[in-house]
């Protein structure tokens, strides 16, 4: 809402208040000021002047030398050279006198044009940032010719002559205060903020007083009272369409509304002043001399004022005559009954509609208007009549027509009064202040609440005041939010803190930083095409995502079921930036839709790791092992995994708990996927199900006594086929030695011609120890023998000679 300070002055006098102080005060009492603009500020030293003599420039075929009478603005006659062709001797024009400033940072100084002194410049509309709407009837091209009506203003500053000076304050009005979307509403807030009187005005309409009455013109029927609380109308005959006077045009412009003609301008003026949207119909276009406020029929066609076609449905309310819809209620009028230059009789509408209905109608028709933006916030039906009267008063003031006597006012159910108890003690306790009952009442009365004993009756334009909290806010915003003293909660102590899972998540993050992994944050929504990029099978259940019905674009249109594409994208970006040795992680939320799609999806975290550069498969495995250690998950198994097409089939492992619960997979990204993300070097990723990790984590620390007896070690070396997994051999060794085995460790692996193509040599050290004694050589040998026997029997391995 843009407020003209000149307009405000009609209602409350704050001329002595500095504009900055004004803006701050209003902000602190709850009407947030976004900023202010001093109009005309950028036009300096431009005055009304008359061309008293004009002759051609001796050295130019298009320049004129003008002798200017600038009145008291300049001593003597000023010579100005102009190239404009529409000027003439005797013309009254705006003259910029050195040093003058014009919008856009233009500075006018004295100078010579082809050798002839020019003491300034004659100005056009455009040079002063004006349009023909500011000065209707004036030529848009060339120098602005002001006309003889300005003869008595020679020498006057153009801002004063054209009423350009004003200050416009821009307010951000919240949706609970539609009453403040008006000059009067803001005047009321201004008055209470500064403790000044509010000078309200009751419109007076003389009427034509010629025996004619509105009933001769019109009947009104509300057929959908659930959507229309009130419908009031008056008729104006002998309409004389003309431009509005300068003061009205300037005020409309200050508020950001384009002046059109007197009747349309009056409807806009009243809307801005009273906050009540109005509409004017051309009476001659209404068929059947009646107005029906009815629901549209499904499929009904309607062309709005802006020449857009709409197809309506029965949820929408229209203002119709006998035959057709003439306006979309509260949103916009129809092209069929628009005010034209030829309009002779006008029907003014001032009505009140159900907010949510106007909102839905405007939304469905993609027509958010000044009117609908007000109606959707629930307006006060009691404001409809004063606004209608004001419009008619303005008609008479402007001589725009004759107001037919009589008012049609359909107001079937009056808005009930709201009554709220005045609870002084409770409000003081709630706010943490100590205010007197008298103070509270004085604030409420300034806000036009009635206080009867212990009952507050808010004015009907304050539909937002319903409970103690609302009243408390009114009092405290005027008293000052910042007058409340900060206190510590005097309440029951609560334990607070992170729960074990939240604490584990923090510990995991920290462990990963320690392992050189940088934390990333990626978007939860992705493109469904990202599943193709990681070669996800067409029938994979993970392709079923939660789909956003109104996405910004395809790239952010579905909620991810895996964060792998997000990770790869970030790795790709870093690779493109030539960042080397990158190691990243995100404990990323994924969204698994419910079967029906009716229930909320399952949201779970998947720890997603990615790295490239100075790393290999075992570097990633090392990170995974550390994560398992952090979670105290013992005896997890790693098995080769070939089923995920995003990964290299020979370099991928699945991590399972001892009980066989899958924790995740990791490995080298498939070369085709890596290439898709622009890599020609190996990329390693992992996805670890954080929920499973936590579910299997062991939070209990149980100390085991240190060994009391020495260990014995035995080394073994075998030649085995290349594809035999070390893990398989180790498992057999561990099992063979039974209880005595403390550790089996791989300490060497060798490939070479001497052991034959397709073979490898592997060497292990087995540590044997008994808890209760020192092992004898015989006991150790017995275990060794068993180990060798099992290896030969189960795997066909023989000790290397």
């Amino acid at each position, binding site marked *: 809402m843009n407020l003209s300070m000149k307009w405000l002055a009609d209602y409350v006098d704050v001329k002595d208040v500095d504009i900055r102080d004004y803006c701050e005060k209003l902000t*602190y009492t*709850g009407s*947030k000021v976004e900023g202010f603009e001093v109009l005309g500020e950028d036009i300096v030293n431009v005055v009304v002047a008359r061309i008293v003599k004009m002759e051609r420039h001796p050295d130019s075929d298009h320049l004129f030398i003008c002798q200017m009478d600038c009145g008291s603005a300049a001593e003597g006659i000023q010579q100005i050279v102009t190239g404009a062709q529409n000027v003439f001797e005797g013309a009254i024009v705006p003259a910029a006198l050195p040093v003058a400033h014009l919008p856009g940072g233009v500075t006018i100084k004295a100078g010579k044009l082809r050798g002839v002194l020019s003491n300034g410049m004659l100005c056009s509309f455009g040079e002063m940032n004006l349009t023909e709407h500011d000065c209707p009837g004036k030529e848009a091209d060339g120098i602005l010719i002001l006309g003889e009506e300005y003869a008595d203003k020679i020498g006057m500053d153009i801002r004063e002559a054209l009423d350009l000076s004003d200050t416009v304050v821009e307010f951000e009005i919240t*949706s*609970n205060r539609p009453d403040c979307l008006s000059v009067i509403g803001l005047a009321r807030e201004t008055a209470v903020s500064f403790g000044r009187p509010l000078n309200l005005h009751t419109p007076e309409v003389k009427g034509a007083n010629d025996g004619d009455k509105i009933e001769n013109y019109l009947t009104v029927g509300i057929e959908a009272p659930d959507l229309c609380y009130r419908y009031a109308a008056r008729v104006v005959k002998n309409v004389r369409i003309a431009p509005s006077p300068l003061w009205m045009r300037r005020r409309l412009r200050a508020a950001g509304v384009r002046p059109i003609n007197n009747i349309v301008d009056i409807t806009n003026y009243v809307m801005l002043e009273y906050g009540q949207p109005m509409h004017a119909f051309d009476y001659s276009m209404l068929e059947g001399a009646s107005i029906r406020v009815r629901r549209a029929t499904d499929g009904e066609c309607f062309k709005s004022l802006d020449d857009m076609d709409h197809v309506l449905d029965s949820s929408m309310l229209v203002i119709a005559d006998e035959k057709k819809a003439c306006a979309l209620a509260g949103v916009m009028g129809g092209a069929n009954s628009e005010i034209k230059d030829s309009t002779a009789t006008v029907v003014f509408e001032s009505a009140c509609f159900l907010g*949510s209905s106007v909102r839905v109608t405007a939304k469905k028709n993609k027509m958010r208007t000044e009117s609908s933006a007000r109606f959707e916030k629930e307006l006060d039906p009691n404001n409809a009549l004063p606004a209608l009267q004001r419009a008619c008063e303005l008609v008479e003031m402007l001589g725009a027509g004759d107001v037919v006597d009589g008012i049609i006012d359909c107001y079937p159910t009056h808005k009930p009064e709201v009554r709220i108890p005045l609870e002084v003690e409770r409000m003081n*306790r*709630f*706010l*943490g202040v100590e205010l007197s009952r008298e103070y509270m009442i004085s604030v409420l009365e300034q806000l036009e609440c009635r206080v009867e004993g212990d009952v507050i009756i808010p004015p009907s334009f304050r539909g937002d005041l319903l409970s103690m*909290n609302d009243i*408390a806010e009114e009092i*405290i915003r005027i008293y000052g*939010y*910042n007058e409340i003293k*900060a*206190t*510590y*909660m*005097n*309440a*029951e*102590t*609560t*334990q*607070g*803190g*992170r*729960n074990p899972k939240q604490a584990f998540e*923090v510990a995991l*993050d920290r462990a*990963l930083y320690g392992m*050189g*992994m*940088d*934390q*990333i*944050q*990626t*978007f*939860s*929504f992705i493109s469904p095409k990202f599943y193709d990029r990681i070669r996800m099978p067409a029938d994979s259940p993970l392709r079923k995502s*939660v*789909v*956003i*019905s109104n*996405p*910004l674009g395809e790239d*952010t249109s579905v*909620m991810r079921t895996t964060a792998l594409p997000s990770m790869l994208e*970030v790795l790709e*970006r*870093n690779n493109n*930036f030539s*960042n080397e040795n*990158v*190691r990243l992680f995100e404990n990323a939320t994924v969204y698994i839709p419910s079967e029906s799609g*009716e229930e*909320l*999806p399952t949201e779970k975290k998947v720890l997603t790791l990615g790295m490239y550069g100075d790393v290999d498969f075992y570097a990633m495995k090392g990170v995974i092992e550390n994560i398992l250690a952090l979670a105290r998950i013992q005896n997890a198994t790693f098995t080769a995994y070939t089923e995920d097409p995003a990964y290299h089939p020979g370099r991928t492992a699945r991590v399972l708990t001892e009980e066989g619960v899958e924790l995740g997979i990791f490995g080298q990204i498939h070369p085709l996927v890596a290439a898709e993300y622009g890599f020609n070097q190996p990329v390693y990723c992992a996805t670890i199900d954080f929920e499973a990790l936590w579910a299997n984590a062991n939070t209990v620390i149980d100390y085991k006594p240190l060994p009391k007896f020495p260990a014995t070690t035995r080394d073994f070396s075998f030649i085995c086929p290349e594809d035999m997994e070390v893990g398989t051999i180790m498992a057999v060794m561990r099992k063979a030695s039974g209880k005595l085995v403390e550790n089996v460790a791989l300490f060497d692996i060798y490939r070479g011609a001497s052991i034959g193509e397709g073979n490898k040599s592997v060497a292990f050290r087995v540590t044997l120890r008994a808890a209760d004694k020192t092992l004898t050589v015989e006991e150790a040998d017995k275990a060794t023998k068993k180990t060798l026997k099992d290896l030969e029997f189960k795997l066909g391995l023989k000790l290397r000679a």
Partner: protein
Amino acid sequence: MSMKENLEQIRSEALAAIAADGADLEALRVKYLGKKGELTAVLRGMGQLTPEERPVVGQIANDVRADIEEAMKTRKDSLAAEALERRLKEEKLDVTMPGTASKMGHVHPLNLVQRDLEDIFIGLGFSIEEGPEVEYDYYNFQALNIPEDHPARDTQDTFYITEKMLLRTQTSSVQARVMENQKPPIRIISPGRVYRSDAMDATHSPLFHQLEGLVIDKGITMGDLRGTLDTFAKQEFGSDTRIRFRPHHFPFTEPSAEVDISCFACGGKGCRLCKNEGWIEILGAGMVHPHVLEMGGIDPTVYSGFAFGLGVERIAMLKYHIDDIRHLYENDVRFLSQF
């Protein structure tokens, strides 16, 4: 040559040999002190001495042995010291070369800020509640006093999944869930991702992080809200930080406020960071609306409470002078490694 002279000769020879360059101390020990060594050989002749001579010669022999042993030890120690000196010289390293331990990873600035905030409120007795990001319209709007077709919905452009399901536009959605499941005293924060249909630019992202706070108990006042936020501001932005409230409207709180902090860069004098205002808008807050309490099954005539919500991105950007929100989601390691 008398035995005595013999011993004296052994002594002088041995001491000279020990002091000589390149002396092989072990060989000399064998030569002079060994079982078959020269001193032993001389001592074997002791039997031929008179009983009077024996103790005298014996004394001399012991002195000679002691002198040789002493000389050898001294010589040995000095050789060892020389050898150590040489070794230390050889082992000199270029200490300016880079370390080889694997580099530390880095916390993402959003996680850093979020954790800081969590710790501040944990210190005030808050616990952390999480809620779904894909949420029912009911919890995101209706339970927060924003019915269908309410104009307040306009300020939060919403991504919808179905008519009844959406991507939450505010962490306030967790408020309603907490009230359904917990009885007062309630003192929770809820950090997390929220979504709004804003195109990405330097200051907007369709996905960002908020942290919601909710307190409900008997006798909670607006002064307590001020006190809590004052503590938060001082801990997060420095002990000189002041806060100010501006009246505002949120459908789920009444009274509602927008809260500014005094600029931590200039202390309120006005600078580029605060756009010369001296104040920076940091969060929205208010006293929980009685309807919201009622919908959560809590009697507003018995209990009162406050709620607040702040933007994690905004704080991270202000605190670390990050000029473009997109940096937070690009994850360039040159950016990440600064945190």
